């Protein structure tokens, strides 16, 4: 990869700053579902602060100029915005590949057709389980599952590619084989078997969500077998939970290396959980260009590259493979944003980290704290 041309920041150029590949646009934090593992922050943004469509369209143009290829239109639930078509059309005009990430319960066939015409390239629909009652219980939304099935049918009927997104945790993990069957039956091109990542709402609900290590390993085996059987028919992505891992994940492909997240209010983050880190100031697209924020804002420079690392990261042979893992997890568990991610076996708290998961998974699951503005921090 080559660096972004004409880098304008004072520190840019000193080190090679790659151009971003993907932008996650959280258009709103409003959502009819209340999934207890939502990736939104605990402090949800209010509707009054949401960026208007014309600002989004400008941001997406800036993103494409900066090198972004893939746009992930998400939320909350992006379809609650009546101006979504305008934003999607702006993305298409900028040449971005547009992934619509939706709960799908508010979609109508007519709306979906309009969105396809506006330029949506691919639709991802989340399913909370394959069993109707449990799915609606987890989403805390009546008749949601049935609506999702209907919407998935429209996606395929309109000739759009479909991803089935299956967030996995202890209260639906036995449905992994049924999720694979569901994706096949719906004619999906892609299935995400995505173990819940424990940030934000999921961290708050960790005890009610954490599966056992044996369950995680079994889910991995099931996916491996299905991948072999469905080669060339269904692409299956598998996201592992890192509490039982030995090596940390290269979170976001490394801080400020490939992904930009823009919040409903226009704050630009290196990852969707970054606001959980204290003392970082995230600049806003209303105040500064996306290029300047990407190249030289303090928040993006803070954990970019490897200079910020402490031991054991600093001398680790994998430091440019996993980039020290996840800063938010290091802060949440170790209390130090510069610490090695506790998912790494070289972390002094690695055993305690795994024991936390073992202990919680062994106990009875507590009640869910459903995502809502009322329960918001």
């Amino acid at each position, binding site marked *: *990869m*080559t660096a*972004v*041309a004409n880098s304008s920041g004072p520190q840019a150029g000193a080190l090679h700053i790659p*151009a971003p*590949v*993907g932008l996650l646009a959280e258009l709103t934090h409003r959502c009819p579902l209340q999934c207890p593992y939502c990736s939104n922050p605990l402090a949800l943004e209010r509707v009054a602060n949401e960026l208007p469509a014309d600002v989004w369209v400008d941001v997406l143009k800036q993103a494409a100029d*900066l*090198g972004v*290829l*893939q746009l*992930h239109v998400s939320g909350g639930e992006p379809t609650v915005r009546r101006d979504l078509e305008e934003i999607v059309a702006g993305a298409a005009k900028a*040449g971005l*590949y547009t*992934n619509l990430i939706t709960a799908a319960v508010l979609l109508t066939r007519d709306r979906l057709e309009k969105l396809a015409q506006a330029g949506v*390239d*691919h639709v*991802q629909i989340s399913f909370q389980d394959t069993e109707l009652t449990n799915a609606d219980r987890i989403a805390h939304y009546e008749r949601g599952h049935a609506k999702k099935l209907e919407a998935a049918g429209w996606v*395929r*009927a*309109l*000739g*759009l*590619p479909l*991803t089935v997104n299956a967030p996995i945790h202890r209260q639906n993990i036995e449905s992994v084989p049924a999720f694979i069957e569901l994706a*096949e039956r*719906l*004619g999906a*091109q*892609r299935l*995400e078997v995505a173990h819940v990542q424990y940030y934000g709402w999921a961290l708050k609900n960790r005890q009610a969500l954490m599966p056992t290590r044996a369950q995680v390993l079994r889910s991995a085996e099931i996916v491996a077998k299905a991948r072999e059987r469905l*080669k*060339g*028919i269904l*692409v299956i*992505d598998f996201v592992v939970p890192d509490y039982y891992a030995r090596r940390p994940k290269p979170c976001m492909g490394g801080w400020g290396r490939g992904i930009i997240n823009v919040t409903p209010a226009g704050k630009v983050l290196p990852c969707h959980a970054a606001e959980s880190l204290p003392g970082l100031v995230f600049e806003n697209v209303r105040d500064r260009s996306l290029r300047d924020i990407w190249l030289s804002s303090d928040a993006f420079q803070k954990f970019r590259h490897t200079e910020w690392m402490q031991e054991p990261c600093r001398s680790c042979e994998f430091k440019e493979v996993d980039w020290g893992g996840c800063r938010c997890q290091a802060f949440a568990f170790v209390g130090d944003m510069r610490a090695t991610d506790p998912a790494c076996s070289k972390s002094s708290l690695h055993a305690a980290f795994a024991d936390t998961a073992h202990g919680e998974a062994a106990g009875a699951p507590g009640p869910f704290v459903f995502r809502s503005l009322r329960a918001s921090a």
Partner: protein
Amino acid sequence: MTEAPKSARLVITAGSVPYLPRHIKLKQDAARGGWTLLAPERVFTPDEIAVDVLKLCDGRRTVDVIARELSVAYNAPAEEIRGDITAMLQDLADKGVVTA
């Protein structure tokens, strides 16, 4: 056009007529140079030869015809090229970015 759900793995042969499904986009990458192949939640970076092959995957040419055209362009034996591009297209078909 609706891509029908596939019930069996697509096997690429010399007689296959490959093309990119509607939702797969081959485009130039101004920021990084070269070409990029965009798919749902995936970005592939095809090398120059792969780009030459993909540009000929137009839903009209067979793999055999593509191999013969490239054998002229590359001044290399068509059989050798056919073997290479069949393997490459099979790999891309397995990833869902090429169909036939």
